């Protein structure tokens, strides 16, 4: 029996387990998955919790349910990965797991402890987050009774997972406060280390225009050094200040500490890999998938989805002694919720930025690229069903290929 060990049963790890289990001969291969947490969170749903649109039942399910019966799931934190010995040591009873192939899918996580002032006396009082389930719930309770003031969304450092979520949060906040007839008592500002609202020029142009229309301000190129919780101030490395009444922070994102401890990570504990095949740049039997990998594309569930599809095909080639194809192009596909029952869709890869057009069927859609529409909003809402029922179990989604297509897109 050959052994595949998958670390992490989130989006990437669960999909990889399902895909490989389907493709590999079960008499010859044994797949084991390790995760420290029994709960699978639908992370794209966290965005909707502060506004009372989603609750627990939409975003929380047991991990076990999404893994095949013959795949072993062990719940335990991981002590150490020993790549030279092809083994992993768990915290639970110091159990040692040996592997032939290791797939790291331990994700990336918000780390408020990395910025002075965040997790002190004002944490979850005037300083909130929404990239964790607990944080999203606490923010929902805060917003219910909030009387208005300056709400600042700040991004500490790139990369963060789902770089569109902070923008969606602001769009939804504009809508939420308008519905509650208190928009005139709320000032909305995005404070970001990026030169503009988003990372790609054409999308930034559209999003900036939409921000202006909705009275949302942007403070660009602001790299936060610390927060002064008592004075309610954000302070940058070049000593500029932004005051706030309510701070919704997107903390520094880092890969799992065990990656750093095991010498497998970069300065943010993300694993350096080949950007087309996900093979570790250091070890020829280690891959990293999803947010855990250091790749020059967005950290997002859609990227993990396309990546795992490309990876699974290649893995079969690889273990049969054939060359892997450079078949992952950095494809990302993100619905951006813009409030008022509408949304934008963007589709891009390593080389091509988001362009206007129709998706997935050229000329037909039904989704509109880089343009607001109601159908895009419904796409985003439907996606939750797709996620639990198609994506995690590793089923093919019709018309959506893992490589980006230029068909139906307008370039200059």
């Amino acid at each position, binding site marked *: 029996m050959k052994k595949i060990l998958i670390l992490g049963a989130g989006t990437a790890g669960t999909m990889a387990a399902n895909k490989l289990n389907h493709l590999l001969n079960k008499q010859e291969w044994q797949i084991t998955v390790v995760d420290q947490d029994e709960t699978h969170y639908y992370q794209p749903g966290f965005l909707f919790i502060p506004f009372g649109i989603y609750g627990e039942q939409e975003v929380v399910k047991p991990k076990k349910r999404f893994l095949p019966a013959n795949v072993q799931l062990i719940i335990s934190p991981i002590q150490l990965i020993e790549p030279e010995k092809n083994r992993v040591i768990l915290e639970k009873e110091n159990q040692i797991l040996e592997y032939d192939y290791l797939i790291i899918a331990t994700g990336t996580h918000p780390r408020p402890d990395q910025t002075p002032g965040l997790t002190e006396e004002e944490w979850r009082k005037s300083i909130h987050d929404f990239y964790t389930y607990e944080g999203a719930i606490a923010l929902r309770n805060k917003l219910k009774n909030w009387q208005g003031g300056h709400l600042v969304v700040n991004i500490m*450092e*790139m*990369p963060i997972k789902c*770089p569109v979520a902070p923008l969606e949060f602001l769009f939804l906040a504009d809508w939420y406060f308008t519905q509650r007839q208190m928009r005139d008592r709320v000032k909305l500002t995005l404070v970001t*280390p*990026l*030169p503009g609202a988003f*990372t790609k020029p054409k999308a930034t142009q559209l999003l900036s225009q939409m921000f202006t229309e909705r009275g949302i301000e942007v403070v660009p*190129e602001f*790299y936060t*050094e610390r927060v002064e919780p008592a004075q309610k101030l954000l302070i940058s*490395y*070049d000593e500029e200040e932004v005051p706030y009444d309510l701070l919704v922070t997107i903390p520094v994102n880092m890969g799992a500490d065990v990656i750093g401890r095991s010498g497998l990570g*970069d*300065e*943010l504990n993300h694993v350096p890999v080949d950007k087309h095949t996900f093979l570790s740049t250091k070890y020829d039997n280690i891959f990293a998938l999803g947010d855990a990998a250091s790749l*020059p*594309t*967005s950290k997002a569930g859609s990227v993990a989805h396309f990546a795992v599809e490309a990876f699974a095909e290649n893995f079969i080639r690889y273990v049969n002694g054939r060359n892997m194809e450079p078949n992952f192009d950095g494809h990302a596909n993100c619905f951006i919720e813009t409030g008022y029952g509408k949304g934008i869709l963007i589709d891009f890869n390593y080389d091509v930025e988001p362009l206007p057009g129709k998706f997935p069927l050229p000329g037909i859609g039904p989704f509109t690229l880089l343009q607001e529409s109601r159908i895009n909003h419904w796409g985003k809402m439907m996606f939750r069903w797709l996620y639990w029922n198609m994506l995690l179990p590793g089923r093919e989604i019709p018309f959506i290929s893992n490589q980006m297509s230029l068909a139906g897109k307008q370039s200059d």
Partner: protein
Amino acid sequence: MTTLEIVGKQVEFDEEGFLKNPDDWTRELAEALAAEMGITLTPKHWQVIEFCRQDFQRTGESPTLRRITKESGVTTKELYKLFPKGPAKKVARIAGLKKPTGCI
């Protein structure tokens, strides 16, 4: 793309001001680019520039701000004093490297 004459030589840059051809880079060019940004290069600046160039040779990528501070021994605060407003991007431009991909 733009072509500029710097220290008596025609040099090509992309839309965002990053050097097209890495072989065009010289120390004089770095000084001229820095001067354009209002920066006079001191030995401390050069320590950072040289780190970035070496790191690029090793990894093929321009280092992010966090990588520079972690690996070169210069703190983020100092880096902002040396290259105000977006140090990672400014150093990459002066060092003749491509845009750092940290911003994605």
